């Protein structure tokens, strides 16, 4: 399993993925000067921009790396020789997924350092009204990484049953959108304005809410930007939720993949 993980990671590095990420650093370099345009909330804006930038990059990675890494092995027929090695398909899948998860974490660490540098530069040019809570910033980036690891597990799940990359890529995007909106949608349903809606529709939405992960729980951007204290209990609950959800999705993916025909 770890050997599959190693060669998959090696593949990511050789595939010039890292080059692409390096290019994104150019945008980060532009953040301090962009933030200065806001005149007053320079630090806040630099944090917002950095975190959004990280989110976009991680989303692209989760959808494309998660969605194509398994698909590519099958499509290019690498899987015939790989799956004939003396380990189970579940382990193979786990190895591949761990590679994607580790890569996501690695990207989070690197971009986290970059963000710290960017925010420091921005804050130096225009001292913020309130002190920057670095700890919150790091937590926000960490939780964001967890969110995208969870999202890539869906990409893997879709890839185990699909022979094209449309389902993994588009399916993952759909999960992301529904998962990000679900909290808001549920709250809206509970409100008085939604009282006139068909009960069947309401029920469908609330099922979706429980089926699709609730990504807003992972969102600590506001805490990072305005230095609002993070609830420790909330964090632990979200992490437990993350572990349980991830375990369920990956187990299902392993089960489905072990039945897949390699023809």
């Amino acid at each position, binding site marked *: 399993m770890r*050997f*599959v993980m*190693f*060669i998959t990671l*090696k*593949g990511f590095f*050789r*595939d010039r993925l890292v080059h692409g990420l390096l290019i994104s650093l150019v945008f980060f370099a532009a953040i301090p000067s962009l933030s200065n345009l806001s005149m007053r909330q320079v630090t806040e804006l630099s944090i917002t921009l950095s975190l959004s930038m990280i989110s976009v990059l991680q989303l692209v990675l989760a959808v494309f790396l998660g969605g194509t890494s398994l698909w590519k092995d099958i499509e*290019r*027929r*690498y899987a*015939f*020789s790989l*799956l*004939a*090695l*003396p*380990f*189970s398909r579940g382990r193979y899948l786990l190895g591949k997924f761990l590679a994607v998860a580790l890569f996501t974490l690695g990207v989070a660490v690197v971009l986290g350092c970059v963000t710290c540098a960017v925010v420091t530069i921005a804050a130096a040019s225009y001292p913020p009204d309130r002190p920057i809570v670095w700890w919150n910033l790091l937590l926000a980036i960490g939780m964001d990484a967890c969110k995208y690891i969870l999202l890539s597990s869906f990409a893997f799940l879709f890839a185990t049953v699909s022979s094209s990359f449309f389902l993994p890529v588009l399916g993952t995007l759909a999960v992301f959108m529904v998962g990000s909106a679900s909290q808001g949608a549920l709250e809206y349903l509970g409100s008085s304005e939604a009282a006139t809606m068909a009960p069947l529709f309401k029920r469908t939405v609330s099922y979706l809410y429980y089926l699709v992960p609730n990504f807003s729980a992972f969102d600590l951007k506001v805490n990072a930007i305005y230095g609002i204290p993070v609830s420790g209990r909330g964090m632990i609950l979200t992490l437990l939720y993350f572990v349980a959800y991830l375990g369920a999705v990956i187990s299902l993916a392993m089960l489905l993949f072990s*039945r897949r*025909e*390699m*023809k």
Partner: protein
Amino acid sequence: MTSQTLHEPAIELANLCKVYSGKGGSRLQALQGVTLAVRQGEVFGFLGPNGAGKSSAIKSIMGLITPSSGSVRIMGQPATDPDSRQPVGYLPENPSFYDTLTAEEYLLFVGRSFGMKWVTLRQETERVLKLLEIWDARKRPLRSFSKGMVQRVGIAQVLVHDPAILVLDEPMSGLDPLGRALVKEIILDLKSRGKTVFFSTHIIADVEEVCDRVGVILNGELRAVEEVREVMAAGVHGYRLKIRDTESGEIEEVTIHRPALSGYLHGLTPRKEILLMEPVRRNLEEFFLELVKGAAAPGPEAM
């Protein structure tokens, strides 16, 4: 090794059936009740025309596809168990490997997956890369390899962990004449070291040269399993003789059917001198073609 595992077939297919179901409910019966036992230490050739079901049978052995019915065992272990592949090296047809890795890295990965010790693995990697004449290219990514070079990597990754059973799907395809000769040499060497080799091909000459037994598969059915030596011996159906008349010096050539030979020899007068006598054999190719034609145009008993 207990005496029981010693007599166990290396690979055992029992009533193996495979139906591919395609779009719109179309069904294709790729394997129809194939039963076959490959003995330990033999070289078994799996012969059949395109689309006969060779690769389907091999993929079932490697657990890549699930048989519709029937079972596969490797050294007595069901092929559904990943551990059954521990003694097996597999070469897929038209292989393709992670093309960002180098040949050397890929072999090291395969060896590690089989649990080889690092020191032996390095030695073996060097040995097989040199054996297959891709040592000089070992540091290049596989995407820069030609088709035949990839095939050589495919064979190298089978040999690197020195498996007891080798399952090769068209090992000679894509190779130049030197490469084909090399692979035959490798197979004979494996046989001399007691390994089991099961390989598919549609080239009859390859079977003649290296196989102990041959199985002929047609339209998903195993039509014959024969000792290659016996097919060759049973194939002698007559003799060609070159005879010189010692007085006139005239040379004539005759072909005599096997049963008529002794009668003919008795009838020769002392004036006649036999210069040459050679068997006329129906070779494996004719044996194979007969089977194929028999299937294409069924005789009255098959109707």
